[in-house]
Structure formats: C-alpha cells, structure tokens
C-alpha cells in the first residue's frame, strides 16, 4: 500500500513539474513586452529584464523560479495590482474561491446523493422522473446562467440577496453563487448515483443477497450503497474542473475576488499579465492534479480489487 501511494504521488509530482516547466517556458519565450502597462524606453526595459534575470538561460531562470515557488513566492505582477506580491493577492482570492467552491461541492454532493438514492429507490415513479428532469436541466444549463437568473430574481426583482458579492457579509452573499455552482455537481451526482444504484439493484449479487433472505434497508445498506457509491469518486475530477470553469464566470458576474476573477483579469485586463498567468496556471494545474491523485488514492482505499492489488505490490 505504501509503495502504491508513493508511486502515485511521485507520478503526480513529476507530471506537475513537467507542466510547471512547460508553462514557465511558454510564458518566458513569449514574444512581446512583459511590462505592458508601463511606458518604458528600450534601455529601461533592458535594464529591467536584467534586473529580473530574464536574460539568463531558461533552465537557470526555471531553477530560481522553482526555488522561490517552494518558499511560496510567486513574484510580483507586471501590471495587475502592480507592486503587490502575487502571493498576497492570491491568498485572499484562494480563500474566497475555496470557501464558496467548497460550499458548492458539499451542497451539490449531499443533495445530489440524496436525490439519486431517492430516485433509485423509487424507480419508475414520480421522484425518479423528477430526478431525471432535474439532472438534465442541471447538466444542460451552465452555472452562470443559473446565477444570472438568481441575481435577476432575488437581487433585482425581489431585492433580498445582495446584487454583488459583499465580503463583509460573506456567508449571506455567497448563497447565490454557491447554489448556482452546486447545481452541476448536484445533477451529475444525482444522475450518476441513480444509474449506479439501479445497475447494482439489477446485479446478480443483489439477487443472491435477496435469495439469502435480505430485503429493504438492510439489503440497500449492506450491498447496494457501497457498490454504487464507490464509482462516484471517479466523477469527482470532472466535477472539480467544471467548478473551476464555472467559478470563472460566476466570480466575474457576481464580483467575487476569487481566483476565477483573477484569471479573467489576467487574460483580458488591460493587457496580459505574464506572471499572474503563470502563477494561476500553476495553481490550477496543482489543484487539478491533486484532485486526480486524491481520486486515484481514494478509489484504491475504497475498492477492494485495487486495495488488495496494491497490498500485493508491496
């Protein structure tokens, strides 16, 4: 098991290193002026480049960058929030995004599971149909559209929630963005849970358990739930990706200072901020790879087929 975990973690770390290098390289070899918002003469630019070590060989630059990175230093932005270390800006952004995103994931998973299980237990009846329709809508309509509707209805027509995000009333003003972000998670998990459970209900081993004399809640708890829920771990990665993407627009629309809004600013602002693009690229990639790693490990712990194989690897 230890070997299995090490192998997976090592692979993930290596992949991340390669990606960080690629991003770094792309951002560095890029043509154009890395200081778009400042008026500087060529001489000044050359001096600045030298000062920042931009003329060193790429590998030396990369080594220095990674060394700084490991200390948590992302450098300074070139135009955006000029002068403030990226780390400082990122800290607030990450905290805002993670709190809202985390809330959305929790809400989505909890309600999604509940809905999916209820639908599977009432297969073919009203609740099942409701769950199907609900999950189709949730998957077909982007989260920002839900937010637009919520905003229009509950902030504009009926002014109950704030129209824009208000950091002073964090919990209250994150209700609408978190809710709209959670809908995709909710509907995906609901649909997946429902289908998995129905499949397990039709499986031979549930037939055997019934032949044994098991029924009702006992049967569901002992044989159906575990087998149906293990595969749900696999949809986690795509869900997080969607959440990140969705958060981009949701944060923009609702004026939340999060990493999504930061990303939008970095690529569409007054000019592209190279260092922010790099920092955010690393952050997003790390997050994504970490989630995939987590899914991999979690699956290994939950599914005896992999767990036993992993044990035998040691």
């Amino acid at each position: 098991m230890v070997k299995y975990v090490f192998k997976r973690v090592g692979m993930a770390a290596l992949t991340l290193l390669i990606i960080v290098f690629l991003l770094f390289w792309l951002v560095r070899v890029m043509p154009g002026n890395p200081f778009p918002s400042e008026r500087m003469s060529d001489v000044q630019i050359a001096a600045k480049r030298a000062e920042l070590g931009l003329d060193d060989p790429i590998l030396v630059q990369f080594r220095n960058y990674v060394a700084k990175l490991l200390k948590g230093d992302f450098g300074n932005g070139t135009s955006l929030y000029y002068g403030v270390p990226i780390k400082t800006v990122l800290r607030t952004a990450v905290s805002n995004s993670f709190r809202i995103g985390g809330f959305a994931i929790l809400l989505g998973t909890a309600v999604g599971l509940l809905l999916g299980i209820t639908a599977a237990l009432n297969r073919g009846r009203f609740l099942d149909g409701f769950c199907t329709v609900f999950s189709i809508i949730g998957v077909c309509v982007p989260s920002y559209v839900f937010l637009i509707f919520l905003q229009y209805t509950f902030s504009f027509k009926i002014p109950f929630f704030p129209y824009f995000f208000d950091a002073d009333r964090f919990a209250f003003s994150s209700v609408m963005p978190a809710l709209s972000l959670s809908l995709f998670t909710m509907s995906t998990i609901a649909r997946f849970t429902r289908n998995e459970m129905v499949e397990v209900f039709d499986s031979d081993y549930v037939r055997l358990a019934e032949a044994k004399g098991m029924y009702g809640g006992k049967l569901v708890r002992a044989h159906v739930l575990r087998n149906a829920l293990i595969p749900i771990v696999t949809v986690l990665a795509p869900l997080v990706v969607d959440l990140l993407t969705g958060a981009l627009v949701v944060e923009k629309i609702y004026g939340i200072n999060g990493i999504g809004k930061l990303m939008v600013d970095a690529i569409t602002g007054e000019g592209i901020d190279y260092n922010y693009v790099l920092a955010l690229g690393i952050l997003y990639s790390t997050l994504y790879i970490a989630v995939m790693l987590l899914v991999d490990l979690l699956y290994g712990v939950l599914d005896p087929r992999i767990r036993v194989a992993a044990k035998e690897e040691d």
Partner: protein
Amino acid sequence: MSAETILKISDLDISFRTNAGVVHAIRGVDMDLQKGETVAVVGESGSGKSVTMKAVMGLLDSNAVVNSGEILYRRPGDEDAQMIDLLKIGKKQLRQDINGQHIAMVFQDPMTSLDPTMPIGRQIMEGILLHKNVSQSEARRRALELLELVGINDAEKRFKNYPHQLSGGMRQRVVIAIALSADPDILICDEPTTALDVTIQAKILELIKSIQEKMKLSVIYITHDLGVVAKVADYVNVMYAGRIVEVGNVNEIFYEPCHPYTWGLLSAMPDINTDDDRLYSIPGSPPNLLHEPVGDAFADRNPFAMAIDKKAAPPMFKISETHFAATWLLHPDAPKVELPEELRHRIERARKEAEQYL
C-alpha cells in the same frame, strides 16, 4: 420412503410487460417436488425455466405479472401443516421466512453473483445471522464449517478474501456455501455449471450431490445440458415456450422419450459414437412469446407436425404412472411415429453402456 410433496407449482401463468408488448412467458406450468428428490428442468434459453424458479424465489423482475397459479410450499416433516402459497405471502415475509432458510438458490454465473466489495466470509455469515439467532463468533464458526463443507481447504485464510481473489470454481463453491448457510430444505440450482470450465463442472455437480445426501436436500436443477440431467436428476421436466411438454423419471426421458422436442434435444447431444455426418440441431428457433402461439408452440419446428398442431395445444397424455407428454402424436387416432433411427441407435447404445455399469 413416503411421498412428501414439499413444493407444488400448479397452473403457473406469468407474463412480462415490455416496451414491445406483453410477453406471455409462462403458460400454465405444473411441477411437483418431493422431499429428497432431484428434479431437473430442461429447455432452451427463453423456455421459461429460469422464470419459473425466480417466481418460486420471489425474484421476478418488476415488470412481471403473475396471471394465475399457485406455488405451494410445505415445511418437511410437518405433514399436517398448511401449505403456504409463496405467491400470496408478500415479498417481505417471503424473504424473512422462506428465502435462505427454506428455499435457497445457486446462480449461473459465479463471476457476478458475489458482492465484489465484501469479503466472502462476511457474505456467508450474513445468511446465518439473518435467519439463525446466533452470535457473531458462532456465525463465523459456522461459515468456516460451510467453507470446508463446500471443499475450500484453507477456509480460515480464504475467509477474508474478496471474490476477485478466487477462481470461478471456488466462487461457485462460495455461492453454494451461501445458499446452504441457513440450512434450506430446497436448493434451486440455475445452470450452476454452465459458466465453469468443463473440468470443474463435474466437481461442482459431485459437490452438490454429496451435500444433498448429507443435508437431505431436495434439489431443482435448471439446465439446458442433458449431460447434467443424466448425472443428477431423478425426475425431468422438459420445458418449451413456457410450458412443460414432457415429464418423466430420468430413465423414461432418456430411454423412452415421447415428445418430438425431447427427441430433438436428445439428438442434439454430442456423442462420441455418433457416426452422423452432421451435428444434429433442432431446426428454427423458439417462438417469440410476444405473439401467443396458436396450437402447439413446437409445431413450426416439428418434423412430425400434424394438422391438429396448428389448431389446438395438446393436453398432457399419460404414458405411465410417472411419464406424461404433451403431443398430439400420443392421441389414439394419431399415426404411429417411430423414433428417428439415429436416436434409436443412440438410445440402444446408452442402454447397453448403462447395463455394463450395473
């Protein structure tokens, strides 16, 4: 030994609602099982043999409708007791009182019939804990005993194994152990060896047979393999298109078959001594029960079909005290039909072989 009927299926009639329409899968099945006896139900896939047994177990799919019939069960050694109609008592009571502890079932595919996320020992214990009022440790002890009974040697070690760590044959042994976990009276085996290697098949059959003797079980085999039937059965029910077309003891079915369908099944059995040029198979395919067959459902595939087969379904004709067949050929007015020659030779040979072993 006295006759003690412990399971009696009468006039069972089941249909399924499907997207394509109503499939009339079981069209009046009668079957008896006596204590200690082994009955085989033989037929092609789709003949309704599995559906009948699923009805006994209360495992019919939700789109199944029982139109009529009874499945009566009586606890053995309790002849005064009322027979219970398994179709009437409701699922919950069926699971609590009958499934597992009185009637248990072994399924066809051992690769899929065990829960992949639960150690096998736990899965056996479940059955014991469910029906017997015993402690965890007692259940564990009994589960280990069962594992040994079904021929798994290092039971203690295997107890914690997950299904994927066992071979197909071993898994089927575990499934049998699960079926036996609450001391049933009746064991229903749905093609228990079809999914297994030929070399394992015989061993599993032997195992079931020895357990049957040890535990005084009554066994129902569902199979399409007449080889299996010959090895294990006392009684044979041949099913076709949702009906039993011939019933008799194993000798009658193998040596004096009367229904052309049974002839076809016997002829289709590969045999080393056959000097036929080609392997025989029954022409055509079973009727689609979406459309209710008129007359004898087998008529279209029957080389000896008569005009009457197109008009009315044949009743059961009595051949001996134990032997019945549903074919108009047995009607007194019907022309006399000889067994197909090749089949006759084959039966002769089989008879001689059997005599040698006596």
